């Protein structure tokens, strides 16, 4: 009998092309997603070497990062961003890559449109020049971010030179209580293991609380694997996965669907397979989480006090935490609840899907956002935007006083004009609270869509459970 294997090992084994002596394995890539920010230098490299894209039929593009979320009839105001988006569309056309350009009605965030169209499927290897590529791991795919040199490698050869990662089981048992979400699971994990805790690893999320999540919620969890240091994170496919995929444009049909389904069912980790590392989280004990500092590991339950840097184990970490609190302008010892905020951002590849928008709308319905707060709601794709409008969510947001914008990365990375002013505080459903991430001098509290919406209503950091009926 063969050795029991994890899903990570199974996908890896099935994609090794060759192991050249003295070099890492050549890993075959099933799907390569490209966007405007990390690809131009790679296409330029291909031109310099007179190379073609080897498999345009395994490549797909969309613009999202520097793409404005203002009405699409308007031209892109920033000439540098406009040139980048135009160059991206030109590159895709020249190299024969299918893509959603700036005005395409299906345009959206790269990690939203892949799953939405059924491009993302179990058992695949998926890469993108973006660290949140692990999002696609929600489908039981080995998906990870790469740099621009590797974007060029995959465009030219459909392969990467890659060493295997360690496996890291993240077991989440129990049941989430009302007001606690998938976002809180992943923020709690990162707070527990730290932002470097998963370095060199691929997470496999397991346990009853993970099984109970919808595909959109699973994407939220996998999305932030990189914030725990892991380049990839995945969840074995199950009926929830298959139901989500059935009927999507690129999902297999008819006989091919049955074949694919039989294959997908072989993917989950075998009984008795060993992981290099393991950690356990009890979902029943979780509260809504919020970050207080300048990396996603600086997270606490919303009712807990901000930790004192003096309690840090070593001098460099003490200094790092002091620097973070100084940047954030907050004192240790008190909870964040009640602190005034200037902006609430609901969006990003972490939390911009229908489930997220519905959650936010459930709190905003019949309420007004605080007059002191600018609230941006940015759907992850134009398709989601249309669906939300069909459900009337846009009216709920607008009537509450929030902005309802076009799809894109928006204020998560603040490259497209949507940004905080220096000193401003935001409750944000995005994935990074690094200094200046949402605009130079801006200060970010990461939280779930429920916490963000609750804070929008009150104008201060708010535990959503206080507003839930």
């Amino acid at each position, binding site marked *: 009998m063969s050795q029991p294997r994890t899903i990570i090992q199974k996908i890896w084994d099935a994609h090794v092309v060759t192991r050249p002596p003295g070099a890492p394995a*050549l890993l075959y890539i099933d799907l390569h997603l490209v966007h405007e920010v*990390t690809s131009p230098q790679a296409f330029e490299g291909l031109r310099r070497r007179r190379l073609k894209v080897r498999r345009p039929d*395994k490549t797909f593009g969309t613009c999202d990062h520097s793409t404005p979320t203002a009405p699409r009839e308007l031209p892109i105001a920033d000439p540098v961003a406009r040139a980048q988006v135009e160059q991206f569309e030109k590159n895709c056309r020249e190299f024969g890559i299918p893509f959603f350009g700036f005005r395409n009605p299906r345009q959206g965030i790269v990690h939203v449109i892949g799953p939405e169209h059924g491009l993302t499927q179990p058992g695949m290897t998926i890469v993108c020049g973006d660290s949140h590529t692990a999002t696609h791991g929600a489908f039981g795919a080995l998906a990870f971010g790469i740099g621009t040199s590797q974007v060029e490698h995959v465009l030219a*050869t459909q392969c990467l030179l890659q060493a295997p990662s360690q496996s890291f089981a993240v077991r989440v048992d129990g049941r989430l209580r009302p007001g606690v979400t998938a976002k809180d699971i992943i923020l709690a994990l990162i707070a527990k293991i730290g932002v470097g805790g998963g*370095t060199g690893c691929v997470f496999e999320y397991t346990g009853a609380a993970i099984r109970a999540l919808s595909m959109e919620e699973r994407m939220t969890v996998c999305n932030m694997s990189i914030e725990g240091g892991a380049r990839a994170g995945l969840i074995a496919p199950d009926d929830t996965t298959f139901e989500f995929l059935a009927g999507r444009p690129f999902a297999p049909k008819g006989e091919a669907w049955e074949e694919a389904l039989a294959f997908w069912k072989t993917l989950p980790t075998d009984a008795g397979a060993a992981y290099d590392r393991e950690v356990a989280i009890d979902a029943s004990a979780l509260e809504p989480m919020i970050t207080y500092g300048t990396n996603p590991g600086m997270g606490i339950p919303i009712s807990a006090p901000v930790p004192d840097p003096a309690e840090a184990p070593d001098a460099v970490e003490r200094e790092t935490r002091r620097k973070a609190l100084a940047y954030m302008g907050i004192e240790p010892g008190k909870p964040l609840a009640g602190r005034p905020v200037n902006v609430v951002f609901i969006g990003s590849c972490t939390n911009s899907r229908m489930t997220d928008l519905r959650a936010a709308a459930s709190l905003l319905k019949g309420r007004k956002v605080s007059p002191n707060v600018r609230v941006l709601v940015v759907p992850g794709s134009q398709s989601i935007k249309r669906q939300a409008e069909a459900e009337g969510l846009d009216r709920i947001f607008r009537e509450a006083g929030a902005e309802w914008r076009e799809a894109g990365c928006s204020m998560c990375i*603040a490259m497209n004009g949507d940004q905080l002013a220096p000193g401003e505080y935001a409750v944000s459903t995005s994935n990074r609270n690094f200094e200046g991430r949402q605009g*130079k001098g801006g200060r970010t509290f990461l939280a779930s869509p429920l916490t963000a919406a609750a804070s929008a209503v009150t104008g201060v950091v708010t535990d959503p459970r206080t507003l839930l009926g």
Partner: protein
Amino acid sequence: MEKFTPFESWVAVLPVDNIDTDQIIPARFLKTTSKEGLGDQLFYDWRYDAAGNPRPDFVLNRPPGNRAQVLLAGDNFGCGSSREHAPWALTQFGFRAVISTSFADIFKGNALKNALLPVVVPAEIHARLLQMLGADPLATVRVDLASQTLTLPDGTAVEFPVEGFAKTCLLEGVDELGFLLKHEAEIAAFEQACRAPVDTLSVKLDG
């Protein structure tokens, strides 16, 4: 790629843990379609004030940090975004090596592809080097990739790990894409043998 040769250098000291790539090069500078001109934007928001003037107290704005080829940083250097603009900015500024107790995965890979050597040292060596440079900011270290040794200002030689293939590429200036392209026949054979899960050209989407 140029061959990576041994060198001796001053050290720029930035003892902060978890320095993310948004600090190394803020996202607003990523709208470029070129690799050039990023050295001036390295650590921009730490290096310049609101008016765009260099902050005199920032390590890269004063000797020897402004001429150092080695950066000494805290744990988990390069975490966050996958942007290769981070090593591009570091090398264009003049850095050839970064010393830390650990590096984020994607950054490490990107650095090695751009002749920027990530030097991992144990915490106690890191603390000692920090102390030595505190006592004498003009002290130098020597980096020798072939022997995988970092020589501290007091002459102590410390061995550091480097993955074998990356080392060969750096020392001999091997072009990784060129190496991959030589495996064309094996890639084609793999494609023949294995099922293709998705064909992105197979569906013509409206709009």
